């Protein structure tokens, strides 16, 4: 726009300082909300601030949040995986079958991880191979995977997992710090690096923004998407191990309805449901918020159904808020 035009002009890397953009980000807003909820909970119940209570609270979200980390990547790439909870059911069932054949803990873990990975690869193949929308494919595999569970188990349950298998879902690494929590923190760091610091992560953003331009730029779009579905399947397998270990049994109805809660974590975390934008930090904070709210409601003896009304309302607000704000700003401009 300027009138002074020189031949070779220096273009700065960025205009805003990183600090400036950090302050005005969605994550900062989320963190404020998280602190607010923490403070409210502390005042509302004398039991909240107890270290063991807080530790218990983490179990409300760690398993779902582990899947949410991978789901965030899938959604940023412009796809979605609705079959994650069904994968937990199927992977847990497979572990139960292995148990009937006398499998010990290491074998159970391998079976859980492999089942998840195979389910994810199956989703990935259908989506990238057939070029069909993932929302349709994974609604299908959601019924398919859980259906297999129901056929195998009916109204029965697998029980009698080995004593040492209980460590994954019930064990503590140090004092009040659970194995699940440590696994979540480590995974969050790995996923943060993967999404924000690697070529692979950059390609995820590019695909989510413009898959055609991505392909025209040499990004192997199909391969990246396939890997993301595999990764989500694998993380669902991890969650299946933790949940089965924590409950000590497998029923076909295990983890039902989790897919929506997981997607709530991701969207609340600032990931654009249409793809192309989002951050792991946001998803992590969102997981903490949801965990604390669930726990706080529990301490106040609020029924579970109210929690689900709250979750639904929150999801709508979170999706609507940025759009309304943008429209409002646009209106102000015009």
């Amino acid at each position, binding site marked *: 726009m300027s009138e002074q035009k020189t031949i070779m002009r220096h273009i700065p890397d*960025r*205009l805003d300082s990183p600090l400036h953009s950090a302050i005005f980000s969605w994550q900062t807003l989320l963190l404020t909300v998280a602190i607010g909820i923490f403070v409210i909970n502390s005042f509302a119940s004398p039991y909240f601030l107890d270290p063991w209570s807080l530790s218990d609270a983490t179990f409300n979200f760690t398993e779902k949040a582990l899947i949410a980390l991978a789901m965030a990547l899938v959604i940023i790439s412009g796809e979605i995986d609705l079959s994650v909870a069904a994968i937990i059911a199927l992977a847990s069932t497979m572990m139960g079958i292995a148990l009937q054949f006398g499998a010990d803990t290491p074998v159970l873990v391998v079976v859980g991880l492999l089942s998840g990975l195979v389910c994810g690869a199956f989703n990935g193949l259908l989506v990238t191979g057939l070029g069909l929308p993932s929302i349709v494919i994974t609604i299908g595999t959601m019924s398919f995977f859980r259906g297999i569970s129901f056929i195998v188990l009916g109204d029965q349950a697998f029980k009698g997992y080995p004593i040492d298998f209980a460590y994954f879902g019930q064990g503590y690494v140090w004092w009040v710090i659970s194995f699940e929590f440590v696994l979540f923190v480590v995974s969050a760091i790995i996923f943060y690096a993967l999404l924000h610091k690697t*070529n692979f992560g*950059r390609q995820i953003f590019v695909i989510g923004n*413009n898959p055609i*331009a991505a392909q025209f*730029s040499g990004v192997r779009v199909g391969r990246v998407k396939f890997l993301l579905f595999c990764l989500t399947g694998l993380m669902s397998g991890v969650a299946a191990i933790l949940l089965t270990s924590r409950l000590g049994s497998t029923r076909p109805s295990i983890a039902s309805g989790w897919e929506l809660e997981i997607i709530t974590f991701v969207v609340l975390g600032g990931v654009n449901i249409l793809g192309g934008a989002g951050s792991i930090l946001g998803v992590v904070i969102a997981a903490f918020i949801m965990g604390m709210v669930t726990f706080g409601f529990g301490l106040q003896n609020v029924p579970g159904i109210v929690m689900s009304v709250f979750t639904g309302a929150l999801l709508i607000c979170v999706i609507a808020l940025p759009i309304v704000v943008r429209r409002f700003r646009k209106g102000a401009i015009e």
Partner: protein
Amino acid sequence: MSQPKLSLSGISKSFPGVRALDDVSLELYSGEVTALIGENGAGKSTLVKTLTGIYHPDEGEIRIDGEVVTLTSPHSAFELGITAIHQETVLFDEMSVAENIYLGHAPKTRFGTIDLRAMHSKAKTVLEGMGAGHIEPATLLKELGIANKHLVAVARALSIEAQIVIMDEPTASLSHKEIEDLFVLIEHLKSEGKAILFISHKFDEIYRIADRYTVFRDGGMVGKGLLADSPQNEIIQLMVGRSVDQIFPARDSSIGEQVLSVSQLSHPTEFHDISFELRQGEILGFYGLVGAGRSEVMQALFGFTRPSRGQVRLDGKPVNLKSPADAIKAGIVYVPEERGKQGVVADLPIFQNVSLPSLHEISKNGFLQLANEFALTREYTERLDLRASSLSQHAATLSGGNQQKIVIAKWLATRPRVIILDEPTKGIDIGSKAAVHEFMGDLVGQGLSVVMVSSELPEIMGMSDRVIVMREGKIIAEHINDETLDAATLLRDAAGIEEVAA
């Protein structure tokens, strides 16, 4: 021509940080075509949006037949008889031609439902009246080509008896023949007394069809007058605010060894038996009408579509290009025609766009190195004289010409052997155009080989060493571009006719 049909005076419009229109005035006269000329970013689109009621000006007044009017919405513009035909027509693909023409003002039966029969017969009358009787009112719009869609848009304008017709780059995606048809139609509109605003980048078109001109630069009106009194250079001077000595740079590159050879490349539907070779330091022009299959050949070379037959050799060795990633690795890159869709990732920063195909080169063990990305981006964007406030600015916020520079920078950073440019200057302003042309000269000077697909004859003749003409998926002719080659020959080849009044 005493009183203008439409006059704007003192119109200003600001967006945060940008004064898009600054005290602008414009007059349109009944029965005349006024050309609106300006570089991209000069404020033409903002003006069109103001005239069609999408934007509301901060200051100034709009008069129709001398009376002050306010355009509060697109609907009020419509009621005041203003209609716009856009570069990419805003019509509805899944509806019929008649429905598109009469959307919002369809004839009704006495029960208040749409009278289909009346609508179809009225549509037929309108279409025939403008010499487009070949379009059936019942046809779905998506079955028509772009030129016919334009005709439907014009028919819509006629059906609402609009007195003021805005044409925003209507010829951008039309072939030569289709442009001629459009001009006949514009003459027809003129004779009916419509006031027409014609926006185009192409000077030959402007001189051909327009009576008056108004020039915008950086959001302001810098000149207006009768075209008959103003030579082209004078107007270009007004547009860029500096003199453009030569439109096409002279260059002295030496043409070397054969780099690329393509033999008998075929596709089931798009092209047949395409064979050509490309030498080092050469610019090979591909000329033809829109739809001749040129882009399809290039996309097959780039590994985006799979040819059914044929061979591609690079430095004499056969290469198997199954995906763009393979082509890039082999050193063949492609600057697509559809910049917004295939070229830039609009909502990502400039530097992420530029570094994308080079990521594996500048990263460490798969981890991004931001400093390397910025350095690479800076090196290539500054060479292309990119106009941006920072490298973290989103590509979407830049003008078409600057977006094109990002796409070119992205490919140069991969240090390719062969660069394919598909309509490299389509829809970009004259300043950026010159920059792209000059840069093509630099590229071949450095030993790269360039394939340039273009539908603009001056560009083909000004830039190419050799010209291949395609028609209906086949190579029709190949010419060395020397003094003996004339535009009429190329046109004849492309259109497949014996005589052309050129």
